[in-house]
């Protein structure tokens, strides 16, 4: 279910004749002080020079962290991880629509040439076929990495994922086979002009299904470490790649193979007055909003990246909220029954955390609508809405 818009979305780089203001298709209002374009080249969420990105450096072995690194954007980090997985394990196979020539987002560049067309190949245009095929491979002990061209097109494979992939280990009991070797990768999230079917973030639909691990990286270092962990994990994994970061997010990524832990959140910034919880691209918006709020309101905010949205790291969230007493959850997908609903409910359900709450749990997320082309900037969370969320929570 690839569509004409592929080219449009795939070529994120601005044309030379257009003013280079963040992204070419939208500019910010002249007097804006909050909704400014994210400058990915200076954000402390990415490791620009000596790998000093905010985050838990202790998760990576010292020799990896201090070893050689290479500047990569997110699609290159995904490509790097896939290359390592193919090189290290003969059981790894990569397939999907248009992956053989490198993929519409360049994530599988040169993999078919290097590892052979039997291990990296195009499939017919059928999402249910791709995921079903992957489950069959996994059940035979392979480690298939299937690509769905856009998260918006995962739905034809819903049945295979939910009734088959997620349930196989449970259904087989002690018979042995399971689909744990399966990883499904897919680009997700808003890209400024993706409209209804090149913008969706369907992660919460899959967090309602026991059996899958649902992962959303925010940076090239994460994409590589979490993807390698997902491929090697014996549970089926759904790996959502924020496509707006494919080219925009660039950082120094260790060249060695490494894994980052699944189902473990990462504290990006210490704070004492409010906890902001997010994952994927909105983390950059959160950090901007926090910086403005700290300047304006004289507070300090803690920022947590969930990384794995299911099974998620409740303890990390509880610990933080017990300290700050205030919390805001931020995500692109619509607010109702989104990840924020689950996080908020879990916070109020945990007695030791509930009693520490000083304000209602806030949610900044997409409105409960489809992603409309021309109105995208009014529905997806932005710095101003997050800033306002922080302000309201503190004023409560």
């Amino acid at each position, binding site marked *: 279910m690839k569509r004409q818009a592929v080219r449009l979305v795939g070529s994120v780089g601005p044309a030379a004749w257009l003013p280079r203001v963040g992204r070419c298709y939208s500019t910010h209002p002249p007097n804006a002080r909050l909704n400014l374009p994210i400058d990915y080249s200076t954000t402390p969420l990415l490791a620009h020079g000596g790998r000093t990105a905010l985050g838990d450096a202790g998760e990576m072995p010292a020799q990896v962290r201090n070893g050689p690194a290479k500047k990569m954007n997110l699609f290159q980090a995904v490509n790097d991880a896939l290359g390592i997985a193919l090189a290290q394990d003969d059981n790894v196979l990569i397939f999907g629509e248009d992956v053989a020539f490198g993929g519409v987002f360049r994530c599988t560049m040169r993999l078919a040439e290097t590892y052979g067309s039997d291990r990296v190949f195009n499939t017919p245009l059928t999402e249910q076929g791709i995921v079903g095929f992957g489950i*069959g491979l996994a059940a035979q002990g392979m480690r298939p990495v299937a690509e769905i061209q856009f998260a918006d097109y995962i739905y034809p494979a819903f049945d295979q994922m939910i009734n088959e992939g997620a349930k196989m*280990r449970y259904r087989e009991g002690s*018979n042995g086979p399971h689909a744990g070797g399966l990883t499904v990768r897919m680009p997700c999230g808003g890209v400024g002009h993706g409209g209804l079917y090149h913008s969706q973030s369907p992660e919460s639909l899959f967090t309602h299904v026991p059996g899958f691990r649902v992962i959303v990286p925010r940076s090239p270092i994460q994409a590589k470490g979490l993807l390698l962990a997902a491929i090697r994990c014996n549970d089926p994994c759904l790996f959502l790649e924020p496509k707006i970061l494919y080219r925009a997010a660039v950082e120094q990524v260790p060249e060695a193979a490494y894994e980052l832990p699944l189902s473990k959140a990462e504290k990006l910034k210490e704070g004492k007055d409010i906890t902001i919880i997010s994952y994927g691209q909105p983390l950059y918006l959160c950090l901007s909003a926090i910086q403005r709020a700290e300047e304006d309101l004289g507070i300090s905010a803690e920022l947590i990246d969930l990384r794995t949205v299911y099974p998620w790291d409740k303890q990390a969230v509880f610990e933080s909220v017990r300290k700050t007493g205030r919390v805001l959850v931020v995500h692109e997908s619509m607010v109702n029954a989104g990840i924020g609903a689950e996080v908020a409910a879990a916070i109020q359900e945990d007695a030791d955390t509930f009693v520490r709450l000083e304000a209602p749990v806030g949610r900044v997320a997409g409105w409960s609508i489809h992603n409309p082309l021309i109105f995208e900037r009014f529905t997806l969370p932005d710095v101003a809405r997050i800033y306002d969320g922080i302000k309201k929570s503190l004023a409560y």
Partner: protein
Amino acid sequence: MKSPFLPALRLQRAALAPRLVAGSAARQRRLSSSVSQRPNSDFVSFPGALKSAFTSSLKFETPESYAALPTYRVVDQHGVVVDQAFEPDISDEQIVKLYKDMLYISIMDLIMFDAQRQGRLSFYMVSAGEEAVSVGSSSVLDPGDPVYCQYREQGFFKERGFTTKEFMSQLFANRNDTGKGRNMPIHYGAGRLNIYTVSSPLATQMPQASGAGYALRMQRMQDANAKPRVAVCFFGEGAASEGDFHAAMNMAATRSCPVLFICRNNGYAISTPTLEQYRGDGIASRGIGYGIDTIRVDGNDIWAVREAVKRAREMALQEGGKPVLIECMTYRVSHHSTSDDSFAYRARVEVEDWKRRDNPITRLRKWMEARGCWDEGKEKEARDGLRREMLQGFAEAEKELKPALRTMFEDVYEEMTDDLREQMARLREMLDEYPDEYDVAEFEGGKESLKR
């Protein structure tokens, strides 16, 4: 469906042949630029249909202009051999064994159907009329061939070695059930026999079988000593209307996967007759459209099924691997399941006709009696013996404990998550707090298994 289709197909195969021979390097790049239009050519070299000849007559192909694909049979309904080239390839003892396997399933059907009617198990599905398809297929496949079933292939489990205890443990969901009591009755699975556990959603097993076939192909490429194996996939003609059928056939063909697709076309999908299921020539005619070698077989003739599956397996392993489709024509003599009364949508006389006129078990029995290796005495002895064995297994399985309560939280993930440990503890608290509200005595270890 002979002439107009087949030459075209052969040409298409020929166009693909070099890439199969030359292997991966050649397959890697079949750039569209290599398909070009030559001046004055008789063929349109559009990339989408290689070697399609030009024609100046405006003519639509109509399904009616093709004769229905023929149905291969070896023995007719009177038990008389009609394929004069046929010689049984197995001993009389082995033939009797296959007959008893079919008989076993038909007797189990009667006992378990009644047991369900008495409320002693929640659900059952019989396979009356279709025993030859499953037993016959199983008897010519390698025990290592991974098999995906739909749900009406009990005979396959039996022939491959599923025991009475295993059947009954699954049906009663007791602690000896390898599915750990999680699945509805007849959703059998057998890891040791390389048969995947049956899942209710129809046709989902089909693209999975294509993937399994591709895995077998890769494993042989990576290890020359690996045993040649094919994936096997059963499905009904109703399931073939699902999108997964299309996905599976197309993927198996384009990725050259060694997989046997075996369709049981029994005329009905619950109440829906085939006339409301499709308008083409059954399922077999579709195989050709996908570029898949295909045969239609008399599914009430175990010899025809055996010959076709045996040959199909050899074909599936040729050229590194390819799919083959077998459509077995049968008639669903039984109700769809214990939840169905089929006389609400078809005439009782139609069913009685099929039972009397043509039935895979009586057909093989007539053949065996003509051969002199079976008679009324042996029949009675076999029936009595199988019935005794089954009733004994039934009684033992029914009184066996159910699996430990803890197993309901296990195998969702490889390791139990923190959430699940907490939920297990909460269930335990409920059982402690409200002991009269729950009966846990039938579960192995009672509530004690619910410790974190």
